[in-house]
């Protein structure tokens, strides 16, 4: 049976956070395409809406869903703030699936609710996901933005691990390990911007990343 991934990507270029996530999503899709027996469906730009998400889940029954976009305690958003998944509305869509949500705070309520209704595992953040960057524009420049990579590399390590078939707990641990490695680099750096603000933003994301549900779940 094919391994099926759905990935949401609002890819709004005028929004720096989404522009950066778009570049990393592109990198993750390349990785997924290298995996055997794996199909990936990307809901990009205005296709990152609830109607298309519902349809694609119904038609293809993905085992892994990778959300990228803005969020809040009880929801994950798509294009232009369109709500994709919200507590007490349609979280049933992600039952029996593994979820990774690079969406602010959604781990706080939505993640917990998803596990209650039968989502296998949920990796996300229970507070805002924050990062520092150099406001690059092109995909290549974004992926080479050292400032952003201190945080985005560990953040997406969990996605890499899941795509490679690792368990949810291992994916979370791999991500946490790189966060910690990078934190050690930052706090021992003699560059003031690294050992102060970049370190504090990374520490925040490290601290509030969570893994809920069955840690042994794998894709």
């Amino acid at each position, binding site marked *: 049976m094919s391994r099926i991934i759905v990935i949401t990507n609002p890819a709004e270029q005028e929004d720096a956070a989404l522009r950066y996530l778009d570049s990393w999503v592109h990198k993750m899709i390349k990785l997924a395409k290298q995996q055997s027996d794996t199909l990936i469906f990307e809901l990009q730009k205005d296709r990152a809406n609830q109607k298309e998400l519902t349809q694609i889940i119904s038609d293809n029954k993905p085992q892994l869903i990778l959300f990228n976009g803005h969020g809040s305690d009880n929801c994950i958003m798509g294009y232009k703030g369109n709500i994709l998944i919200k507590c007490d509305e349609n979280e049933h869509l992600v039952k029996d699936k593994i979820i990774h949500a690079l969406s*602010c705070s959604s781990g706080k309520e939505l993640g917990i609710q998803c596990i209650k209704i039968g989502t296998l595992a949920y990796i996300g953040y229970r507070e805002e996901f*924050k990062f520092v960057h150099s406001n690059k524009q092109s995909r290549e420049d974004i992926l080479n933005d050292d400032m952003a990579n201190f945080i985005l590399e560990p953040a997406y390590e969990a996605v890499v691990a899941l795509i490679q078939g690792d368990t949810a707990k291992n994916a979370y641990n791999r991500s946490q390990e790189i966060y910690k490695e990078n934190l050690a680099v930052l706090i021992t750096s003699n560059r*003031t911007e690294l050992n102060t*603000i970049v370190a*504090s933003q990374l*520490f*925040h994301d490290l601290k509030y990343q969570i893994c809920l549900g069955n840690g042994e779940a794998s894709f």
Partner: protein
Amino acid sequence: MFNNNKISEKEKRLIIARLEVLPPELHFSSGNNGYNFSRDEMIVQVESESDVGKNFVATELEFLRAIKDGSLIKQLV
């Protein structure tokens, strides 16, 4: 998690000082309300005690407290 109480002047000055040493091209983004502020714009947010500014200060103080109480180092070992 973050209280919305007033920032003390001391805390504000501390965080602004930390921001001022950063290269001006650095930007801060979050996925909550989609903000993207340059260094100088974040200084304005902190100075004006906006929600973004207070949130930023809270994150910085949490980090500084973690250094002080040793919990940050415990994370790394």
